């Protein structure tokens, strides 16, 4: 038996962990709690949670009346979900081609597609904007989706290929002998097997897309196509002095993401660490 004295005592471990918990959560909780308070209480007692006497929703009503957060949320949702679906489908198809068949150029295409893992797509922004202008896609969600799919594919293909290479060949061989088409094997045998790795790919691609400011700012700054991130940015720019509205807009942008995160955090973190071990 290892001697107990050689280990750190549980208290010595919990103290720094609790301290960082406070550091990590306090700023977020402070903003959320103050967004439910009336102006005098925000400034008078910022560290006190809202009480019946100081409770106020004035900030939220300002935000909802003066900006289109509903549209911003819908835009972010559409862009993120459509991009993710395309990345997963096209990424899985490409990974299947690369990991299943031996053909000339296989290594080349795998390397070519991997370049984008490290090279930030932002560096091509000037040319992307020129292209979107000539295609008439500026201020459309399509422009954002195309860029995000291109940005997300390299890592998705890399992760999915590693995973597909581990799928045993017997089932595929059996299906081929039965005369199944390659498309059928991919859709019916392979796609359902991808479920565990889909979570990993989804996290790595969704978070940067949802949170991105750069491309919405450059490609789709119009009021109808703004995403939540850009919407908050420009709303706060206009209403800096209205603290209730600023706090409420931050809370509105954060809370749905936080709820989703807390609900899914187990799967999210499992996916993250599974992808990271590689």
């Amino acid at each position, binding site marked *: 038996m290892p001697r107990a004295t050689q280990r750190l005592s549980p208290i010595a471990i919990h103290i720094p962990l609790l301290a960082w*918990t406070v550091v990590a959560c306090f700023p977020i909780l402070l903003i959320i709690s103050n967004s439910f308070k009336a102006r005098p209480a925000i400034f008078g007692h910022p560290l006190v949670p809202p009480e019946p006497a100081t409770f106020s929703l004035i900030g939220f009503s300002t935000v909802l009346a003066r900006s289109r957060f509903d549209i911003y949320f819908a835009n972010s949702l559409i862009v993120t979900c459509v991009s993710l679906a395309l990345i997963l489908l096209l990424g899985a198809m490409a990974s299947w081609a690369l990991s299943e*068949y*031996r*053909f000339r150029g296989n290594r080349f295409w795998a390397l070519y597609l991997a370049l984008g893992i*490290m090279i930030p797509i932002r560096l091509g922004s000037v040319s992307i904007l*020129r292209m979107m202008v000539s295609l008439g896609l500026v201020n459309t969600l399509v422009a954002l989706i195309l860029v995000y799919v291109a940005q997300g594919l390299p890592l998705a293909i890399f992760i999915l290929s590693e995973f597909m290479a581990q799928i045993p060949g017997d089932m595929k061989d059996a299906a081929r002998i039965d005369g199944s088409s390659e498309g059928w094997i991919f859709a019916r045998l392979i796609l359902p097997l991808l479920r565990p790795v889909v979570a990993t790919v989804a996290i790595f691609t969704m978070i940067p897309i949802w949170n991105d400011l750069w491309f919405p700012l450059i490609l789709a700054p119009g009021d109808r196509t703004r995403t939540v991130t850009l919407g908050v940015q420009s709303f706060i720019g206009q209403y800096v002095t209205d603290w209730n509205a600023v706090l409420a807009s931050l809370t509105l942008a954060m809370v749905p993401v936080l709820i989703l995160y807390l609900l899914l955090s187990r799967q999210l973190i499992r996916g993250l660490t599974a992808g990271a071990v590689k």
Partner: protein
Amino acid sequence: MVSGRPYRGVIVAFLAPAVLIYTVFLIAPIADSLRLSLFTQPPGAPLTFVGLGNYRALFTDPNWSTQFWRALLNNVEFFCIHMLVQNPIGLALAALLSARQLRGRAAYRTLFFMPTMLSVVIIGFIWQLILSPLWGVARQILGLVGLQALFQPWLGVEGSALITISLMSVWQFVGIPMMLFYAALLAIPIELIEAATIDGASALQVFLRVKLPLILPTVGIVSILTFVGNFNAFDLVYAVKGALAGPNFSTDLLGTLFYRTFFGYQLQLGNTTMGTAIATVMFFIILVGVGFYLFVIQRRIQRYEL
């Protein structure tokens, strides 16, 4: 793998959509940006080839070079702060989290990673409010421990704005190195640690002599991810300080300089070709960093089969 010969059509059909979108919207624009950086375009005139002229201006013409070298230096500082603060904290948290028989591990992990999930823009505004002298939260909290006199509007002072912004970013992204280190630490077999413990090694010795050497490859990955992320950063400075990266450009990074050059600001018109020259310099900085990692660091790091 099966021979691809009978399936040529299938391969093309499966590979083509991804290759097409990736080529058209990622590779081609970056290649085109590299090309454009060799041209100049005065307002209303066609593109004219100038060779490396844009780069000469960027590196030596005081109109550009002052801004460029300042942004580059700031960016190096931004990166160093992340390496010296974010990654050690991430490692320390991961080491504590991976302690055996720890209660509440999942809760800690979830809460530590929470800021990382949020948009940089939101994080920027949150800290801006907290540090605002108008609201006084930071001053009050310092007051609780009797350090009220230390308070300054850090974001507004030239000497401290960049450090403050870097620390905001560290606070947000510490979750990423933490998770990567945590996963690597969990992969270490318990027998190794028990053997060292039985031999009389203290917890600190086990960490430094056994665990750290085993997770060196992860240190390499974390460093290169930090490098690429930092030399491509933009959102935080833009959210907190706008395109002018004040006070007096003290928080200007290559990303904000790129944006400002390309789009212009206030009365200054945007300059497309200079914008692409800055993007190209960023491209080569990242390329050199990634190359250094792949061909020098990754080959030298000793890997142990676990």
